[in-house]
């Protein structure tokens, strides 16, 4: 591995993260650290995957990450969307996860009352 090769990987990855290649419009990340899992993040992840599959949302990618820090609000789900601030939800139950898919991912309206962080 050379530094240039590393940079190539970085650029490719950056593109994927920034969702610029048109494959996916929205990236939904579930905090799957121990705190998240202990608070029920597995159920949340399952519900998200299920709802996204049911609605055949091909432009949504669901993935996992560690914990963001605000553990009293686990399970935490972040929605990354190009050109929009990142919206982070706290205390996401399976039901809320399904609402996020329906209201936020499909209709573009963040679910009020459960947002704990907005990052531009």
């Amino acid at each position: 591995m050379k530094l240039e090769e590393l940079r190539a990987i970085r650029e490719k990855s950056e593109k994927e993260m920034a969702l610029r290649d048109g494959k996916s419009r929205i990236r939904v990340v579930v905090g799957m650290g121990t705190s998240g899992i202990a608070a029920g993040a597995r159920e949340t992840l399952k519900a998200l995957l299920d709802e996204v599959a049911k609605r055949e949302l091909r432009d949504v990618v669901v993935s996992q990450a560690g914990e963001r820090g605000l553990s009293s609000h686990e399970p935490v789900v972040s929605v990354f969307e190009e050109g929009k601030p990142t919206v982070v939800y706290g205390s996401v139950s399976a039901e809320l996860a399904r609402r996020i898919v329906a209201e936020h991912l499909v209709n573009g309206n963040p679910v009020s009352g459960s947002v704990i962080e907005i990052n531009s």
Partner: protein
Amino acid sequence: MRKEMNTQEILQRHGKGADELLGLLHELQDAHERHYLPPESLGAAAEHMGLPASEVYGVASFYTMFSLKPRGRYIVRVCQSPPCHLLGSTDVSRELVKELGVQLGETTADGMFTLEMSSCLGVCGVAPAMMINDEVYGNLTVARIGEIIDEKRSAT
């Protein structure tokens, strides 16, 4: 839970350097369905490493996570850290004592559960918490403890 393996398979996975001893003991203990290190396991480890049995015993007895007597199939560890204590770990332990019918440090008669304490499970944000084998459960309530234990009971 790591995959069950027999003693020979486990020994073969480890080198003979003493620094692998703790990892080896962990695996031997996890592989035993009663979650402990019987004399045979200690003997096998000593032989594999080329160490005196007394030294292996000395190491195993030093660390609180190794048990030299049989334990349950499920090790239930209640977190005792200040945040958990603050948010009701006393009630969690009391409920577990009631639910399992054993005191702390004891194993149920059917060999299913051992109830233990942990100084801190490191999940303070979802206190009170407990760990059953490798799985951590947070934001516990009395009702949930019953559900979780029932789930484990019916899983076997």
